[in-house]
Structures are given as C-alpha cells and as structure tokens.
C-alpha cells in the first residue's frame, strides 16, 4: 500500500455477524486518499458485506459488527450514530450499486430523483442546473430528454451513469462501487469503467470497488484485495497480485480465466483437499466420422409484433465432433439461435434439419429427438424443483430405452457420478444443491439421451468462478470421451476462444463474422468483432 499520502479509509480486524453466522473474520485494509482498492471474491466471500459496513447500510440487513474498527478520515464508523451518518452519507461517502432495473424508483422520473438527492445533499443549489451538470459529468447524451424519462425507458448503461451521477451529487470523497458493471454488456462495461477512470482523474475521488472479475479489476484499480469465505487472503498492487500471486486461491481465480491457458487444454482448478492448484489431464479423444448432424437452411426468427428479426436469415452446418461458438452481447439473438438449433423454437423462415428431417417432422418417440440436447444458463431454473436429480435423469433414460425402473435409477446414478455430482445429493431436491451441482445435473440429463450434439447456452455465466472452470473442464472431457459436438453460446470471448474451433459473432440478429476461433479473436475482420475484442477485459 502507498504510504506517501494520508489514509482515507482504514479497516482493522473487522468481524461481522449476519444471518446467524459470522460472515467477516478479521478483515483489514487501507486506502489512501485519491487511491483505489478493488475487493475481489466469489459469492459468499464477504465483499458485499464489507461494502455495506463502509456505507453504513449493515443495519438494514440486520447485520452486526462484532469487532474491529473502520476509520474514515480519522472518524470511527463502527456503531456510529445516525447523526454521524447523516453528515457522511452522500456528502463524503457515496454508493454506486449493482447495475439493475431496480436500482431506481420505477415510478419516478429521472429528473425528479436527481432533484430530490440534490436538494438533500446540496441545499440551496439550483436543482435543474445541477442535475444537468451531473448528467454532463457522467457523459450522458441528450441530458434534457433523460431528465423527463422513467428508469425502464433507459438502457442498462444509461441507468448506471445516472446512478454514478446520483453518487456524485454530494461531491463525495470516497465512492464505493458495488459490482457496478456486472450484468452489463462488455462494450457498455468498457464505457462505464472508462468513465470511472476519468472521474477519478477529474475529481480526485477515492474508489473502493467490489468486483468478482479479476480482469475488470486490472482495468480500473491500482490495488486489489482477494477475499474468500469472509477473510482477506491476499492484498497488494494489482500488477503484483495478478502476475505473481502468492496464495493458491488467487492462483485458482486467475487460472479460471480461460485466456491464461492454452486453448483447448483443461483449466487448473483448486483441489478441495490439498488446497493446491491442480492441472487435470486431458481426456483422450474418441474418433468421429465428421458426418453432418444439423443443418440450418436460411433460418430466421422474427417475434410477433417485432420490427426487426431476432435472427436474420442465416445458414449453418454442424458436423460430428465440431465445436462451434456463438458470441454476442444481449439482444444479439444468440440465445434465440441456440433454441432454434435445439428445436425449442420454430424458425419463422427456413428449416432446421436433423439428419435430414425437420424438427416439425420429428415427433413423439422419433429417436432423432435424442440427438440434439441442451444445457441451460440458469442452473436452478432448468431443473424441476420437485424432481430429484436421480429421478430427473432416470425419467429421460426410461423414455428412450426399454430399461426397467430400478435399472434406470441405477444407471442415472452412474451418469450423475460421471459428471462429478457427489453421491450424497443424488436424492435431494435442487433447492439444496449449489449452482455448479445443478449445472452438472443438467449436463447428466442431456447426456441421458445419448446425443450427438449438445447446445450449451451460457453454461457458466451464472456460476461462481471456481465452478466455471470445473464445468468447462467437464464439457471438454465429455466432448472428448463421447465424441460429442458442442455449440457454446456465450457473451464471454475468452470462453469461446478456449472451448471452440470455429465461432460466429452476432449483433442485432445478424452474423457479422464467422471463422476459426483463434483468428477471430487475434485478427478480426469485422469492425464490431474488433470492438468486442478491445472492450473485453483480459488478463493475457
């Protein structure tokens, strides 16, 4: 930590109790004035709780600080009275919350929400003029129109700029940004991160940023602290921590980013027992013939009442053993395309042919239905809440084979073991499983039909970083051992580059580029692809 300037925020030995357990243990760090610190960790690491303590919101969620101290500019914040907080909130410490539709009051216009805050934090100021000033400061186009708009009329990126404007209204010294760009598109995220950087230069504000993505941290903060299960396990200048991490957990977080490994090789994961980083061996590839499995012929999808097609007319061939990526931001049509391939959605024009037959023709017990299966983005949402993993998988087995009920349950158990699900949860309901475990069940269910092609729709986006690496490894090894074709739909370029041989880049329903994955991301042809590559935070 820099010692040449005065510390603005000092946290020492912080212990917090929440929801019946201790969620923070002996956490400590310092941020100097004008400097920045990023707190990185997965869900449950305690990073959000720390942010709440610093902004005085810990009471709202019935949390209690049981020990330690938090000093802001010499003033003790732990158990500080309401009077202290009234003087600090918004005026000296401000919060930029996570990007979401519900970060603003949905029934109040933007201008009014700005005016309200300005009136409280900057009494006497001309609210109209100051509001415009703030919108200008966050580089918002057409500010007068924005003032009259309602939150749901703005895009995610614009809403976040408004949140930043609201945070700046009181001219605070410390800004706490709680995952400000999670859930935003990559290009939008780049804009917000740049804005934060510009604002820091302009106002000299100190930044405490909460993040889960180490690559984002690299773009925005000079210092980083890694948290895990309520403890701070490693801290230091970003450059140092990211290049020569000390703790195995930090190494695992870095290794989980696919761009740090050779494309196609298994990612290193943290071994639960030894606590060391482990590099699994690659699975032997089973030989495949290269026959064509699925053909999309001039397929397009236009939703009812829509002005433009969600997927513009396109054609694609998918062969045995192929590995194809579909990349795009939100609204690109990639999920729609994935569903069309699987037959879950009917195309508006064109045909999807599986071994020569269209999905419309494949009905009832036609065995062609087995050949193309899907893995979904939301691990919990894709499992029926009242079916146990074993039954969910056995059901599919019994549908397609003449196996008896008890045998199906046994075989289901084998499949679940193969995907790495712990035996203890085979007969528990999905609510009791972790996200990663649910995703494994989804994979097992897909495998139960013995498919030739699996479409994975954002298979790791809803998972923690440690689970992500495991699922990606699982997919790679299954593809090798079963000779499967994979279509991976994702917004994450590094995942696509790592897992696939060829990729399609989609934007607003149109495929703007289609080629070998390695070339696409190192030497793209299309302007948009180049934008995507540039905007993606990377550790490489």
């Amino acid at each position: 930590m820099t010692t040449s300037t005065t510390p603005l925020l000092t946290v020492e030995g912080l212990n917090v109790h929440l929801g019946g357990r201790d969620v923070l243990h002996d956490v400590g760090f310092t941020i100097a004035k004008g400097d920045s610190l990023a707190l990185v960790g997965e869900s449950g690491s305690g990073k959000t709780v720390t942010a709440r303590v610093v902004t005085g919101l810990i009471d709202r969620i019935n949390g209690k600080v049981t020990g330690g101290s938090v000093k802001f500019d010499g003033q003790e914040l732990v158990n500080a009275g309401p009077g202290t907080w009234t003087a600090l909130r918004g005026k000296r410490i401000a919060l930029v919350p996570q990007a979401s539709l519900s970060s603003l009051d949905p029934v109040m216009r933007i201008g009014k929400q700005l005016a309200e805050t300005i009136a409280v934090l900057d009494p006497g100021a001309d609210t109209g003029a100051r509001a415009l000033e703030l919108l200008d400061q966050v580089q918002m186009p057409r500010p007068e129109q924005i003032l009259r708009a309602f939150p749901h009329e703005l895009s995610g990126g614009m809403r976040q700029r408004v949140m930043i404007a609201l945070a700046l209204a009181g001219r605070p010294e410390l800004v706490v940004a709680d995952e400000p760009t999670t859930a935003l598109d990559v290009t939008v995220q780049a804009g917000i991160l740049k804005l934060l950087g510009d604002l820091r230069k302009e106002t000299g504000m100190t930044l405490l940023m909460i993040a889960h993505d180490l690559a984002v941290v690299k773009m925005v903060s000079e210092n980083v602290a890694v948290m895990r299960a309520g403890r701070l396990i490693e801290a230091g200048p970003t450059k140092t921590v990211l290049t020569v991490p000390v703790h195995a957990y930090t190494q695992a977080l870095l290794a989980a980013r696919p761009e740090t490994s050779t494309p196609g090789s298994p990612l290193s994961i943290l071994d639960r027992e030894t606590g060391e980083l482990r590099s699994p061996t690659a699975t032997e590839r089973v030989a495949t013939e290269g026959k064509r499995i699925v053909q999309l012929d001039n397929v397009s999808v236009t939703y009812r009442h829509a002005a433009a097609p969600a997927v513009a007319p396109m054609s694609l061939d998918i062969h045995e053993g192929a590995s194809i990526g579909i990349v795009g931001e939100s609204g690109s049509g990639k999920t729609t395309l994935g569903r069309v391939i699987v037959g879950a959605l009917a195309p508006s024009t064109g045909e999807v042919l599986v071994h020569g037959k269209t999905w419309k023709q494949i009905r009832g017990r036609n065995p062609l239905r087995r050949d193309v299966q899907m893995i979904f983005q939301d691990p919990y949402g894709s499992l029926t809440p009242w079916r146990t993993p074993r039954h969910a998988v056995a059901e599919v087995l019994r549908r397609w084979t003449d196996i008896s009920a008890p045998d199906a349950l046994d075989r289901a158990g084998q499949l679940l073991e193969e995907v790495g699900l712990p035996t203890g949860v085979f007969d528990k309901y999905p609510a009791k499983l972790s996200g990663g475990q649910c995703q494994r069940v989804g994979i097992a269910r897909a495998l139960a039909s013995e498919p030739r092609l699996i479409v994975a729709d954002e298979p790791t986006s809803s998972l923690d970083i440690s689970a992500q690496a495991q699922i990606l490894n699982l997919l790679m090894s299954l593809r090798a051992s079963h000779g499967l074709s994979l279509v991976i739909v994702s917004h994450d370029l590094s995942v696509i580059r790592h897992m696939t041989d060829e990729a399609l880049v989609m934007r607003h329903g149109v495929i703007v580029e289609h080629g070998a994955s390695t070339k696409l991301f190192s030497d793209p042809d299309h302007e948009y692809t180049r934008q995507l590559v540039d905007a993606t935070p990377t550790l490489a």
Partner: protein
Amino acid sequence: MKQRQPFFALPWLRLAFGVSASRTIGVVVFSIIVLMCIFQPIFSPYQANEFVAMAFQPPSWEHPFGTDAVGRDLFVRTWEGGRINLVAAAIVTGFSLILGTTLGTLAGSSRRRWIDSLIMRVVDAVIAFPLVILLLALVVVIGTDRAWGPAPAGLIASMVALMCVMWAGYARMARGQSLAMRESDFVLATRVSGLSNSRIVLRHIAPGVGRITLALAVSDIVLVVTILSSLPFLGAGVQPPAAEWGSIMYEGRGFLRQAWWITLLPGAVVAITGLSLSFVADSLLDSRSKK
C-alpha cells in the same frame, strides 16, 4: 440405492406440524374443534333438537353455552352444527380444488388456444358474478325444501351452488401458474429431452400448480364456512330448526340484548375455527416465500 427415510421426514408430516409455531398452534386448535364436533354430541347428555331446559338460560356448568329461545342446549347444538359446516366445507373445497386445478392446468398447458379461451371465458363469467347473487339464483333453481338423507334441507342446494362457483378461482390461479411454468426453462428442458406431453404436465407442471392451489384451498375452507353460515340470513342455506352454525346464529339475532350468548358464543367458535385455519394457511404461504 435409495435409502428409507425416517418417519419424521415424511413430507406430509412436516407439512402438518412444520417448523413455525403458528402452524402448530393452528393445527392443534383446529384439531380440538374437529374432535369436539365429532365426540361432544355423542357424549353429551342432551340432544341437539330436544327441549331440555328453560329457555334463555345464560351459560352455566350444565349448559356451557346456555340455552336458546326454545330451551335447547346450545353447547351440543354448536358442535353438532359444526359437523355440518366442516364436512360441507371440506367437500365443497375439495371438489372445487380438484375440478378447478384440473381445468386450469389443462387450460394453461394445452397447446391449443381454443381450449384455453373457452375455459377462461367461462371462468371469467363465473368469477364476475357476486357470489351471493349466483348462490341465491342457484338455490332458487335447486330448491330448499327437501332434505337429502343426513343433510338437512337447504344444505345440498347451498353446497351444489357453492361448488358451481368456487372452482373458478382455482381454475384461474392454476391456469396462470401452469402458463408461467410452461414458459420456464425446466419445462423447456423436458420438451427438449423428448418427454411425452402427459408426463410433462403430470410430473413437472401439476405438482407446482398443486402446491399453490392447495395453500389457497386451506384458507378457502374458512371462506366456505363463513358463506355457509351467512346463507340463513338471506333465506337460503340450512333452515332452522336444523343445527348449523349459521342457522343457530340466525335464530339468535333477535335476542341480542337479552340473550347474547345464543349468537355470540357459536360465533366465537366460528371465529376461532377460522383463525386457526388462517394460521395454518398463512404459514404455508410463508414457507413458500422464504426460499
């Protein structure tokens, strides 16, 4: 191999005596009332319809609820009347639950839009009617003169009328739920896996719908009891001198000043029954949302 689960882990047991205190209280109190309704008239020295003492006696050891306008013991009348109310409420609610959930799930999960439209238009029309108007109209149609077996005059008509009306609420709720579920990822997953439509509806959609409508049903029993007891005030439902919570209270309405116990003590029993059931229903809903 699937393990045998310990007895206490059985889902229905957990449902009945679950974790929350309010649910336990509710179940216990309701059980007491049910037991009283079953056993008190059997062991009571008095018959519900006989004149056993002086009229208008206030509550005493001999007659805990006092006597009514013609000298009948109100305690035994209350519990015997309770049998009718509770059994009728259970039958009506059960029927409405099953019929409504089935039709609603059918409407919500069917691929053919005309089935959905047809069922929902009927549902909307039935729901639009103020309950009592439809009830009275139906009672006129069915008639209140004859007694059917053990059921006193007017009861069957009221029950049939209620059953014609109450299923609609469940149908609407079930349809909404199954429609939402049809769009969910897990149902989509079952379709991609190739499972048959009947299996999807029965094993994947229906259980979820059933949970929601069941919670509604428990609180609906309270409503049915309330409505049944209100009917005598409108000239329908169970007619005096048959014993039923509503008819007993109706008979006592003119004597509030001098003999409040005729109306208010059975009324208290109705209120406590409703309260205990509400505790159970409330806790069912709560545990759903605590996810």
